[in-house]
């Protein structure tokens, strides 16, 4: 009821904006009053979700928002927090850090969001984090990054539900390198996330005694990789680690298989994404090994996965959810669990509740580590199936191995605290 009142008010004020430019003073007088009401009227628990709904990763982030909504619906269906319902406010960041910062300010200043959860891409989440920590709002990040764990960016208001490149690349490296893959080449997207993945691989490689035979950095969002590939080919590696993401990954895979490189070496991609594989087709990805937080076939062994899949299927024509959808669901579900446990939306109380939370939202047991609020969780090693091995349209990956949740795969608290 109170919700409804508020949206109409908001609508009026928007129209005022247009009229106001021309008409002036009368509205100037009433304007502020409207907004003050809108701000104070905060009965719903509001979770702002800045994600890049448009742009190249629109599909992933729309999935994030869809799954987050499921978490909100489940919370509300269970009666909310003593009758107080939750509300999700998705906003488009256009995959730009500046836009994300503005949208986050909007969510906090105009909509009075209690929590912020979201984003995709490291630079965007760091921008959101900068805004939220200055304003002492909890930010639940659901996109991969190492930087956000480090003392330079971390604050007690920062939580990281997604895996980080260190643990993903490390897990993949620990699986691949000892299997007689000692000559290693790297193709690295030249930005923090790419470098972080390469560093994760190299750490894992030290133990396995790898030899780095080629290391090529390419600019972000490269369309044509042909000029980077001959030098890698000439180095004759056993394995090529693709430290890039999204379309960079798809393009480099497509083009390296044109060069006949797939027959010569194993392709490894730490962030092997479900929806990317779906849109890229089976051929370019066939046989590629990577890491993931989630694949829907986990439902065969994990009860919470089954429940999450079923909830998703119900509203999406029987399609299973994606890995990034899982992040969106789990990030919001954790926030709401903590709100329930704390019995309030007070920031400090919710932080305490989150720090003590042991949860199983969709993939088995997880918890947030004390020193960096990084979610400790299972990492799955997967291989992309060929077209003929797929049982159905969504049966994309084989799960080869699981690195079960443990702090040992993360960088130590001591190391992180020194990175200022």
């Amino acid at each position: 009821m109170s919700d409804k009142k508020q949206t109409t008010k908001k609508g009026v004020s928007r129209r005022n904006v247009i009229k106001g430019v021309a008409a002036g003073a009368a509205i100037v007088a009433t304007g502020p009053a409207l907004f003050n009401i809108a701000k104070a009227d905060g009965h719903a628990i509001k979770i702002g979700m800045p994600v890049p709904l448009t742009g190249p990763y629109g599909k992933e982030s729309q999935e994030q928002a869809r799954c987050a909504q499921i978490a909100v619906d489940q919370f509300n269906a269970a009666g909310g927090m003593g009758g107080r319902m939750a509300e999700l406010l998705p906003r488009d960041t256009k995959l730009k850090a500046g836009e994300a910062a503005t949208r986050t300010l909007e969510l906090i200043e105009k909509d009075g969001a209690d929590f912020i959860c979201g984003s995709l891409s490291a630079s965007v989440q760091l921008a959101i984090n900068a805004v939220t920590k200055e304003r002492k709002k909890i930010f639940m990040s659901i996109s991969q990054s190492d930087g956000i764990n480090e003392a330079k960016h971390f604050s007690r208001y920062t939580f990281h539900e997604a895996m980080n490149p260190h643990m993903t690349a490390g897990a993949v490296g620990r699986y691949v390198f000892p299997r007689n893959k000692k000559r290693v080449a790297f193709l690295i997207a030249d930005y923090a996330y790419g470098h972080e993945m390469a560093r994760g691989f190299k750490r894992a490689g030290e133990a396995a005694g790898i030899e780095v035979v080629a290391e090529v950095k390419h600019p972000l969002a490269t369309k044509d990789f042909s000029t980077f590939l001959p030098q890698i080919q000439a180095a004759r590696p056993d394995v090529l680690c693709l430290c890039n993401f999204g379309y960079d990954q798809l393009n480099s895979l497509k083009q390296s298989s044109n060069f006949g490189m797939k027959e010569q070496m194993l392709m490894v991609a730490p962030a092997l994404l479900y929806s990317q594989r779906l849109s890229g087709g089976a051929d370019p990805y066939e046989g590629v090994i990577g890491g993931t937080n989630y694949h829907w076939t986990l439902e065969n062994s994990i009860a919470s996965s089954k429940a999450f899949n079923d909830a998703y299927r119900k509203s999406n024509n029987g399609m299973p959810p994606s890995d990034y959808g899982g992040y969106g669901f789990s990030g919001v579900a954790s926030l709401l669990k903590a709100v329930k446990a704390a019995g309030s939306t007070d920031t400090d109380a919710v932080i305490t509740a989150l720090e003590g939370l042991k949860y199983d939202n969709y993939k088995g047991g997880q918890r947030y580590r004390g020193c960096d609020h990084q979610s400790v969780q299972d990492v799955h090693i997967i291989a992309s199936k060929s077209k003929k091995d797929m049982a159905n349209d969504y049966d994309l990956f084989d799960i080869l191995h699981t690195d079960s949740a443990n702090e040992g795969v993360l960088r130590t608290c001591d190391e992180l605290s020194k990175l200022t």
Partner: protein
Amino acid sequence: MANISLELLALQTFTGLALGSVFVLLGIGLSLIFGLLTVVNFAHGAFYMLGAYAGVFLIGLTGNFWLTLALVPVVVGCIGLGVERFLVRPLYGRGIDYPLLLTFGLGLVLVELVRITYGLDGVPFDTPKELRGATDLGFGFFPTYRIFIIGITALIVTALWLFIEKTSFGLVIRSGARDPEIVRVLGTDISKVWLIVFAIGTGVAGLAGVLSAPMRSVIPDMGTTVLVEAFVVTVVGGMGSLVGAVVAGLLVGVVVSITSLVAPELSDLSMFVLMALVLLIRPQGLFGKKGLMG
């Protein structure tokens, strides 16, 4: 990479030429339209993207790569016809800023329309069976498909050159570029010439798009970076010069390729440094006529 062998250098140069031939295809259309219509077509990248999506659509319809390859330039060229007739034509005589700004807006609209029709994420597009795999060049293996692109580019460039230099219609085009008033006075319908040139320019962009589809992801955004690359090529070559577009396209390709070998992370920057250098030394581009844009 400390040890760069001669073979690798040869392969890298060849890679640059192959990359360059895509640049050539992109640059030609833009340069042609500018040379004759003095329209800076900011929707060029969008037409390239339309080519790829038209390819996706037609291959779904016909199942034949070669037929698709032949049809795409026609389809995209027809869209170009409509654009020139109804959107660009009212702006002639208003200075070069307005068509530029209009096509900029048009680019946004076209990309968004494709996004609405085909969705945000990419569409798969497989390399045709005949052209898969790699070919031994003596100094290294090279994807057969890319060799094929070099061939197609050579074919298109030759055909365009013959069309403009050897046919009577080409004569009208050339004289129209020099002085449209005189051509009109002599009784030729110059607006029809412009219409056709615009269609050819956009058609070639569409062809470049469908040729790129098997190598690069087919996504609505695919034209954005391509637009900038096409500009670099035409500006380096001299706006309006066909020869310039060919030479500059290959040059840019080789420069990018060699930079990728020595300092890969700077490969994107290299083409802009090249462009800045060329323009500072020769403000009208390598083959541009002086005072064209005066």
